[in-house]
């Protein structure tokens, strides 16, 4: 078999998170209407402002159409055929670990996310979310001593409603887009983080999202507020069981960085991508946006995207404060029939704002991988700078790599640079590795990881190794 055939056969990948947890689940009937939303708000014991907001969003959403500008082929979605709330049955808000169903604990153990604090990676606090609810948030008390709030969104709505009221929807209003409106109406949980003035969060905060129930959509909402002179590094990971039908995941993430604050947000997205024939998999339609609200603030997005049947996602930065900095580092790997349309938006409003975009796309099999990025420099953004580097690597002759850069500049003093490359994985590189005794499969893993190195280096150390393995696994094939 020559290396061309090996590349063409580069299709078999084992998704090791594809198991299901057998646990009794409380679910709502399928479909979406105002009653469902009222019921959801009620079950979560939400204050009235939240219910009213959800209803407004829902009414707005009803008049919207799904966007179709992305380079994606999305089969029609029947929004009345989805379950909008599914929660593992357990005692309401368990006070200690002993009250959490052992099956749930086992599930997260299997995913490598132990809920016992002493078993965890040192320096990482986790909020574990299954389907529509948060199961457990670790190290909450430790963090609370510093004034840091790290809890589930549901809890934040009840306990910290002033902050939620002030910031929820302030970066991504429900009018923003179809999926943001849907999420605003039906979001069920997610994480909430508040870092008080002058505090440097001593641990990595992380949320692990798991979809388990069938026919269910997951709609989580994350809100992170970094007050003046604070710092936080946050990481999210996601997996789902292997199922033949597609499942919808429509999340919204909002970040707010005040004066001199820095938020580093990393994602390792490994939703079930569907099988070799493109059957099943998660539709990952996500709106992520951060605002550098005041001067000298910084927001940095890093994403390693290997999962999902379809990805539609553009983590963005609004650089409002003078001297603020936005960064976007991305590796998106697509295989089989996966489709990804992902990138970022950097909106320069303040003076001396800087942004940096480094995107690495890797396409294999029959997949389609698009980078879509907007750099917008507004009238008053004197001396704004942007650097964009956008590379694509092709592993087969049946996949596609596409780049859609948009650059809008309304200020004479601004400088925007854009570099782009597209390359086929080198037969010469593979042969060079072969000649040193390295198999073609391992060679591709090495080369792809090398190609993504600049991005992987941005991840918190504890997760960089995981991400590297993930890239390798996503490319595993059956050729022995």
């Amino acid at each position, binding site marked *: 078999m020559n290396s061309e055939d090996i590349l063409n056969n580069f299709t078999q990948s084992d998704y090791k998170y594809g198991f299901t947890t057998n646990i009794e689940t409380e679910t709502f009937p399928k479909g979406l209407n105002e009653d469902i939303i009222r019921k959801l708000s009620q079950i979560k014991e939400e204050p009235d402002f939240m219910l009213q907001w959800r209803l407004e969003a829902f009414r707005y959403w009803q008049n919207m159409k799904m966007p179709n500008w992305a380079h994606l082929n999305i089969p029609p979605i029947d929004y009345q055929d989805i379950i909008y709330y599914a929660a593992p049955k357990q005692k309401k808000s368990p006070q200690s670990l002993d009250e959490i169903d052992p099956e749930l604990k086992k599930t997260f153990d299997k995913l490598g996310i132990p809920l016992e604090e002493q078993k965890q990676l040192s320096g990482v606090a986790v909020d574990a979310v299954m389907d529509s609810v948060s199961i457990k948030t670790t190290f909450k008390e430790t963090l609370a001593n510093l004034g840091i709030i790290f809890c589930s969104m549901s809890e934040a709505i009840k306990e910290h409603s002033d902050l939620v009221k002030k910031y929820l929807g302030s970066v991504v209003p429900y009018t923003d887009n179809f999926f943001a409106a849907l999420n605003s109406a039906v979001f069920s949980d997610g994480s909430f983080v508040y870092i008080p003035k002058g505090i440097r969060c001593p641990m990595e905060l992380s949320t692990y999202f798991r979809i388990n129930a069938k026919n269910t959509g997951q709609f989580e909402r994350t809100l992170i507020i970094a007050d003046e002179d604070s710092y936080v590094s946050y990481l999210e990971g996601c997996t789902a069981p292997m199922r033949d039908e597609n499942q919808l995941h429509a999340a919204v993430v909002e970040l707010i960085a005040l004066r001199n604050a820095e938020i580093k947000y990393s994602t390792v997205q490994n939703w079930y991508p569907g099988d070799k024939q493109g059957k099943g998999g998660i539709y990952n339609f996500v709106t992520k946006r951060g605002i550098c609200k005041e001067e000298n603030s910084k927001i940095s997005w890093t994403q390693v995207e290997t999962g999902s049947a379809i990805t539609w996602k553009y983590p963005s930065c609004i650089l409002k404060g003078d001297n603020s900095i936005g960064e976007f580092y991305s590796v998106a790997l697509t295989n089989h029939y996966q489709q990804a349309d992902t990138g970022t938006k950097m909106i320069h409003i303040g003076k001396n704002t800087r942004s940096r975009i480094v995107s690495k796309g890797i396409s294999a099999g029959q997949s389609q991988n698009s980078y879509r990025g907007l750099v917008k420099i507004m009238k008053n953004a004197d001396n704004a700078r942007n650097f964009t580097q956008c590379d694509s690597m092709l592993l087969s002759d049946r996949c596609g790599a596409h780049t859609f850069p948009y650059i809008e500049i309304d200020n004479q003093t601004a400088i925007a640079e854009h570099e782009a490359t597209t390359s086929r994985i080198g037969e010469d*590189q593979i042969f060079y590795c072969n000649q040193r005794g390295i198999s073609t499969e391992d060679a591709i893993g090495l080369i792809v990881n*090398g190609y993504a190195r600049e991005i992987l280096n941005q991840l918190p150390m504890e997760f960089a190794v995981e991400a590297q393995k993930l890239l390798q696994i996503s490319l595993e094939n059956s050729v022995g």
Partner: protein
Amino acid sequence: MLKIKNLKAQINGKQILKGINLEVNAGEIHAIMGPNGSGKSTLAAVLAGRDYVEVNHGEVIFMGKNLLEISPEERARMGIFLGFQYPVEIPGVSMVSFMRTAVNEIRKYRNLSPLSSSDFLKYMREKKELIEIDTQLTNRSVNEGFSGGEKKKNEIFQMAMLEPKLSILDETDSGLDIDALKIVANGVNKLKNSDNAYVVITHYQRLLDYIIPDFVHVLYDGKIVKTAGKELALELEKNGYDWIKKEYQN
């Protein structure tokens, strides 16, 4: 160790090798010389297992096995090393992880356990000292941004790390200044022993001032047309290839 019998091979339908016979034994150094386009690099490519060369006749036996049926990585694990004429850059892949993967693959083949990180780094340091290459080179990505000379030195360093049985150096001397040439030659001379063998492909006899071959073969028009001792290289240097061509055509 290596026996090539009446080997014929083509690239894109063009016959390049037209019947090569060559026997290499342990402890020997063979130089293969010849004008451009005579098939020297194609021979190296066949031995390493490049798939763009199609073998249409003959056989190649290495350590008693039919080499042509074996995958390139398996050949490497068996002990065939090719020093590339144009070493390939692999951006972002550190020399350490590249070499560690390669060394451990070869150790696995030899039924040895993989080297731990610290043992590997120690092993690498020893080989670097032996070859006298710049420490900086191994801190970088594989061949990325290396000068021509650095790339060739890096090939010799990899050869030292992998301890092959048969090393084929494909014009490793081209593009080297005299100091780099000496490093390459010294490397070969230090690594040479009674268990391994070298096939040195070169244009110029210059390299053979430092690596003394046991045999010199002249490859012309896809065949080995002359074989002699090291004095043949000097004769070629003095008189060029024209007399060989003439002799062959008659």
